[in-house]
């Protein structure tokens, strides 16, 4: 049946919806586009014949089937691309503006381009809030304390704090810091909140 390859792409997205981003299936996308080309050309021919001899019901049905298949393929392709963008967007909010290399490795060059644009739009928006801008990717939880105790889970080198001083994040060291300085690192799994 037509549209099977496109459905494979959709299944891929469906399978990985809980997890991270799967690799961009360039080959799959190309094959769908090729199928569309074939369907289109076949329809062009049939339509040309129909114009000459206008009551051929049998080729009219074939044209209808191909037309539906073309629309179906288009829909699947767009959904595939669009839902990947949604996933990438979610990753931006979780990991911050720099994605892990293996995630980037699964993105197509055009997706990376989109990601950069998205980042820029988001940054522009956040910068427009108030005088100094407001980082909306922070403060995901209602605050309990100004400072919190955190444990460093991996060696992360130096962290520069808002007041300009620096601290060294070494594995297994514990720190008592302003909550606002740690929230990102906690979400990224570098620090762990100790209670």
């Amino acid at each position, binding site marked *: 049946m037509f549209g099977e390859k496109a459905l494979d792409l959709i299944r891929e997205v469906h399978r990985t919806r809980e997890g991270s981003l799967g690799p961009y299936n360039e080959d799959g996308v190309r094959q769908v*586009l090729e199928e569309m080309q074939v369907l289109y050309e076949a329809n062009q021919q049939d339509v040309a014949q129909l114009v000459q001899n206008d009551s051929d019901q049998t080729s009219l049905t074939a044209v209808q089937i191909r037309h539906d298949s073309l629309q179906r393929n*288009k829909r699947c392709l767009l959904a595939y691309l669009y839902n990947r963008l949604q996933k990438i967007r979610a990753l931006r909010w979780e990991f911050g503006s720099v994605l892990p290399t293996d995630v980037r490795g699964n993105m197509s060059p*055009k997706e990376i*381009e989109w990601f950069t644009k998205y980042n820029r739009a988001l940054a522009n928006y956040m910068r427009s*809030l*108030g005088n100094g801008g407001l980082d909306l990717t922070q*403060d995901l939880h209602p605050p309990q304390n100004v400072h919190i105790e955190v444990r460093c889970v991996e060696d992360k080198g130096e962290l520069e704090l808002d007041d300009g001083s620096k601290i060294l994040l070494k594995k297994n060291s514990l720190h008592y810091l302003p909550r606002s300085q740690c929230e990102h690192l906690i979400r990224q799994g570098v620090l762990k909140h100790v209670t």
Partner: protein
Amino acid sequence: MDDTLDISGVSEEGEEQITSEQVFQQLEEIWVNERLSPNLMLCRTDITECILEQMQEMEENIARAKKTDLKVSLHQLELDRIRYVLSSYLRCRLEKIEKHAAYLIKKESSDGPSVSRLSPEEFMFAKELTSGVTSHLTASALKHMPKNLQTLNLEDSGKVPNLDHYVFLRVNKAEEGIIVDCETDVQNEDKIDLEVDAQHIMRYKLIENLVENQTVSLI
């Protein structure tokens, strides 16, 4: 800290003084509503800008104060709380904007300048976002498709808020004669009266404007 702040254009009478506590209450009100409504609500830059200013003032005060002053950490916590609510509110809006960007842009121009759901910055963000998505879909797929299939209509194909979504609400100001079911045939139009403090479950579509003018609050 200064307790009163100028807010201009809040009421028709002209300038009115309200306290920072009141502004924060208003923020909390629109925050809760925004989180519970399926559609993006009208933008309230009057409130958010006021809060942003207030936050900046607090930051400056904290920076000036001595570090060991006990009051500082209380102020800091207060500031953190305000920032959390504001961020959460704006984040919630951003999520809706991302989901329904094309629809909202279209609506913005059809509604005209009198009602704006998007702040200029949000509008800009929505624009950049839709153009980004459009050009990605075009470059990655559409332009390789047969000519007659290259069209993309995000606002038609894309996401539209579900205004039929049911919401819980509490009545702040009494209101009479609300049409409850406009889809049942004209013969039998259901109308109800809203009494103060009563709670209802209704389709959002029917009470959207009542939420906007604070007749009811979502709960």
